[in-house]
């Protein structure tokens, strides 16, 4: 699957005096925290020196102290749990639908004709614009909420899986034909590894999408959940609680993204790429 591009690249350079690596240096384990840490440092410094108006953005430690208070009052965790349940339900339904339809539409012509066009059309309609209709169709209860989240999850899963399926290199398909693989073997050895990177990428978008839509649906008829908590805080002008909500969303988003990346690392260990 890999050909060793670095060496060819070096040879191509006519007057390269030294052996120059074009691939990235070996990455550090937690290198990605650098950006966030710098931002946090800037925020803390700005807040303590009074550059950042606390009415516009409270100091980072306000999020911590308020968060601790909310946990002690028993507000934070139950709400987070409710939101997590909502996100989880929608995520499961959305992933199943996205994966199923992507396989059908990616692996068969009929499926492609039937589904892909519809998905592309629907993709350009923002979820916010759909909310009133979802209320008409699914009411204002949990069904509506789960559906909205599932729809938000469906698209990235579908699109990336479908894209990966359709871009499987024809040489591998021909190889499978030459080796006279059965259809099941073809799925197992060619389609699955070919589609997996796309699916996992879709999953990363999907998980963040699930959290984002939880915020949206919890604006309507919710009496629990982080979105509800933040909404209340908006109504009662409690900037500190709003900030906790923000931090919590970020933390949940990063945590779920990390878990998918971990999964990616495990499942795609055979890949050798620029990331190293």
């Amino acid at each position, binding site marked *: 699957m890999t050909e060793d591009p670095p060496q060819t690249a070096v040879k191509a350079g006519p007057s390269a005096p030294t052996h120059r690596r074009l691939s990235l240096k070996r990455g550090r384990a937690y290198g990605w925290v650098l950006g966030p840490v710098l931002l946090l440092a800037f925020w803390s410094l700005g807040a303590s020196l009074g550059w950042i108006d606390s009415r516009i953005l409270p100091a980072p430690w306000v999020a911590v102290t308020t968060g601790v208070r909310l946990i002690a009052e028993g507000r934070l965790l139950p709400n987070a749990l409710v939101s997590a349940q909502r996100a989880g339900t929608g995520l499961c339904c959305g992933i199943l639908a996205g994966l199923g339809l992507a396989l059908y539409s990616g692996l068969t012509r009929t499926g492609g004709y039937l589904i892909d066009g519809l998905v592309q059309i629907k993709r350009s309609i923002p979820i916010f614009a759909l909310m009133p209709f979802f209320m008409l169709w699914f009411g204002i209860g949990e069904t509506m909420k789960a559906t909205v989240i599932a729809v938000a999850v469906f698209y990235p899963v579908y699109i990336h899986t479908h894209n990966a399926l359709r871009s499987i290199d024809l040489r591998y398909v021909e190889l499978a034909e030459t080796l006279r693989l059965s259809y099941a073997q073809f799925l197992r050895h060619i389609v699955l590894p070919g589609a997996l990177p796309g699916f996992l990428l879709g999953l990363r978008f999907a998980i963040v999408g699930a959290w984002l839509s939880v915020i949206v649906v919890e604006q*309507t008829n919710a009496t629990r959940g982080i979105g509800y908590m933040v909404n*209340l805080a*908006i109504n009662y*002008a409690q900037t500190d609680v709003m900030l906790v909500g923000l931090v919590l969303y970020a933390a949940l988003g990063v945590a779920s993204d990390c878990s998918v990346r971990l999964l990616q690392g495990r499942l795609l260990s055979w890949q050798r790429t620029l990331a190293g």
Partner: protein
Amino acid sequence: MATYFGRLMAVLGGIVVLSAGATESLPLDAPLPDSVPPGTVLRVGSSTDLSLKLAGVADNLPFKLEVANITGGPGTINAFHAKALDIGTSQDIPAINAAWIGIDAKIVAIRLRQNEASTLYRFGIAPKAHIDSLADLRGKRIAYSPGQAQGALVLRTLAKYGIQKGEVDLVELPSTGRAYTDALAANLVDAAPIAGINVKRYEENYGKDGARILQVAGIKDDPSILWVRAETLKDPAKAAAIKAYVRAWARAQYWIDTHRDQWIDAYYVQDQGVSLEDARYILNSQGSADIPLTWNDAIAHEQQTIDFMARETGHKSFDAATLFDRRFETVAGAAYAQTP
């Protein structure tokens, strides 16, 4: 194919007949039934059912109460469209606006405030606006929400000070959450009607920068209502249940007025997570309930509002009495007054 089509039509026809015959329709002028058939469910838009519980009326309701956390004009109208709500809670302007956009709905209870000297809304003035009195609004940018009570207040204030609509810049912005205080703080608008805790917080936060609060005198802006789609009222089971709910709601209002400290603690502090100080401020700004026993004054007031809004927004005026279901006229008032 022909037989298949025939069968399909027969089945569809059967469904139409069945669904039409399923519930007998109650005319809107027939006396309200008292008995609520078992299994009746009422979905009420309200931020809480805690007041009903604390007042001790939640357990005796003759129907199943489902509370949907949807209140205020935009949310209620949306939910009415979706037929997702039996009773809506909002101020009076959304009901007028709903009539104009073709939703047939009736007011079944109305709540005024006992202390009417001060309006519910105040004008927040942006830090850099240099507005010292409301007469200075001429030429300024004012946050304006056409279908909400806030919008009506803006128009009435302009009319009161003899300012034409064309002389100001009405910035269309729905008043939800912190939209108005944020717009003020950022000097995106010069003036905006705000209420409740937003008034206090805005003054605290931006007073030192020059922000101020201006009172509007002599404008009645406070009717809040329970309202129901006419279609829901035609269902005898729902109509009877709504009557029972209105009664319970009025008793809960009475309980709140007579147990203010308990209400502040149980609802605002414990349930909603508001500080005691803020909670007191909010409840004070809401005042005690005035639930009238007759609606003549209320209807006259709504007629004025409708005529005024029709003139200002280019809609057709209509008879305010059609907004009210007078079969409910005494239900809330009597329940409020009779509570021991």
